């Protein structure tokens, strides 16, 4: 028996112990703990390393486990392979505080899980930002593009402010119409 074969079960038991301990500390629901432990050995160990180094909070752990499981099914890849993608590794190994990197990590996992949604949101956001409405007026996109409804938010205290906004919206009418069309899929999704 090789020395590797001797040490592997011990290492694996240690990883499992650490996962259980972190799960208890973060009050991870039992199904998510089971999901984590059901991953292949390199995947659960790698996710543990990341969870510890980025100090992922409970919600982040839950979201990441769910999204990684679904990415694994979509891409027919194991979680360790997904976590070793350059764009993910760059965040994990990058500079910045643990909470900042944890946030970036979750956003990158979300981008991998929803690649076309992310691209669509980025394009629409860029168009919306280019409109440059006056301060106090804002275009609010539907959450995760779950509907086709654009919200236009105006904060007014005086009639003069209201008139200024109405005038600005009129001037930007065609650009806003373009956003409305993009929300309806007219863009190259």
């Amino acid at each position, binding site marked *: 028996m090789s020395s590797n074969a001797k040490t592997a079960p011990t290492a694996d038991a240690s990883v499992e112990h650490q996962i259980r301990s972190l799960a208890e500390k973060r009050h991870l629901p039992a199904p998510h703990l089971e999901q984590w432990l059901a991953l292949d050995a390199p995947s659960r160990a790698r996710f543990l390393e990341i969870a510890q180094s980025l100090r992922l909070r409970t919600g982040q752990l839950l979201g990441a486990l769910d999204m990684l*499981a*679904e*990415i694994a*099914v*979509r891409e*027919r890849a194991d979680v360790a392979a997904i976590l070793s993608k350059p764009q993910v590794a760059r965040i994990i190994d990058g500079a910045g505080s643990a909470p900042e990197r944890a946030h970036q990590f979750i956003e990158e996992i979300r981008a991998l899980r*929803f*690649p*076309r*949604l992310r691209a*669509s949101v980025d394009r629409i956001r860029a168009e919306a930002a280019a409109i440059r409405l006056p301060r106090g007026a804002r275009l609010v996109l*539907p*959450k*995760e*593009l*779950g*509907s*086709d*409804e654009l919200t236009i938010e105006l904060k007014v205290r005086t009639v003069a402010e209201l008139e200024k906004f109405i005038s600005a919206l009129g001037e930007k009418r065609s650009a806003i119409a373009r956003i409305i069309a*993009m*929300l*309806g*899929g*007219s*863009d190259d*999704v």
Partner: protein
Amino acid sequence: MTFELDAVFIEEGSRGSALAERIAGALPPGIPIAFVPDGRVAAMPDGSADPFGAGKRRMVVMRRRTPFLSACPAASTRFVCCGYLVLAFASNCPMDCSYCFLQEYVADNPGFQVFSNYADAFEELDRLSHASPGRHFRVGTGDLADSLALDSLTRLSGDLIDYFAARENLTLELKTKTCEIGNLMRIDPRGRVMVSWTLSPDAVFRSSEHRAASPAERIGAARAVLDAGYRIGFHFDPIISYPGAERDYAELADALLDSIPAARISIVSLGGLRMTPALKAAARRRFPDDPMLCGEDVLAPDGRYRTFTPLRLKLYRVLAERFERAGAKCSPYLCMEPASIHERVFGAAPERRAAIAERLAQA
């Protein structure tokens, strides 16, 4: 019969009924039949790891205690409604599509129930027909069950077609994912019966539609019943957004239109995959490796996971344009979508509910 059963339970009150006799007479050897005092108990979840899946293999012949006829459960003021009426002749289905809403809807009574007092439904239909003689109604049996999956055992299609063929203002829609059309070919529907198929690309069929006929087989069966005098329809529902979906749905529509001219198709419906969180959880638990359940679905304002809006609309447009270009006699309708989505896809506000219902019933 192409579907397997583990056992048949017959409620004592249904013993000797025409349906029970037919089923008992047509069952392949080796399937045990047991008589039970209350079919509702036999239809409840068993103690297995997958009670919904087990329920599909346990047929329960029993009396229906509630009305057979109801509005489509998908109807809501939030959505444009097609006026479809549901006739519940059975509950659950021997096929096992990973996305099926029954996984949530009949989770508490998953046994495959068929109702021996189905003739009571004809009285309900008579009342409907007589109450509104000037209106046309489209009534389907394919909501809580596949209309034809076990027709070789139950032969219900014969009774239904005989009834509807004699009613001027009622259209029967038999909705299926099978090729079980043998009984249909022996009856003259007199133009009052529509047979419709749910159609999905091969990728969805292979990944998600377990024990269903292939898309090509469904199109072939549709051609056969069309030639036998039936009206036909197609439901592209659920439309699933996976990589390559736009191309696959376009090719599927082309394959259909190569076999059947658009002008001979009575109705086409489109509906994006929609899953409540509970359904999604149940489906993922039962089919953890199905990538079709991991599309770019987000929580929509109606509380269901749906493909994010611009992509969903793009998929609708791919299909709508195909049928429009091919000269479809009526434009497709969208299932469970609000008026704004109809307007964006078709470029015009939808008709009123009564007008849509009338048009589809007579299509």
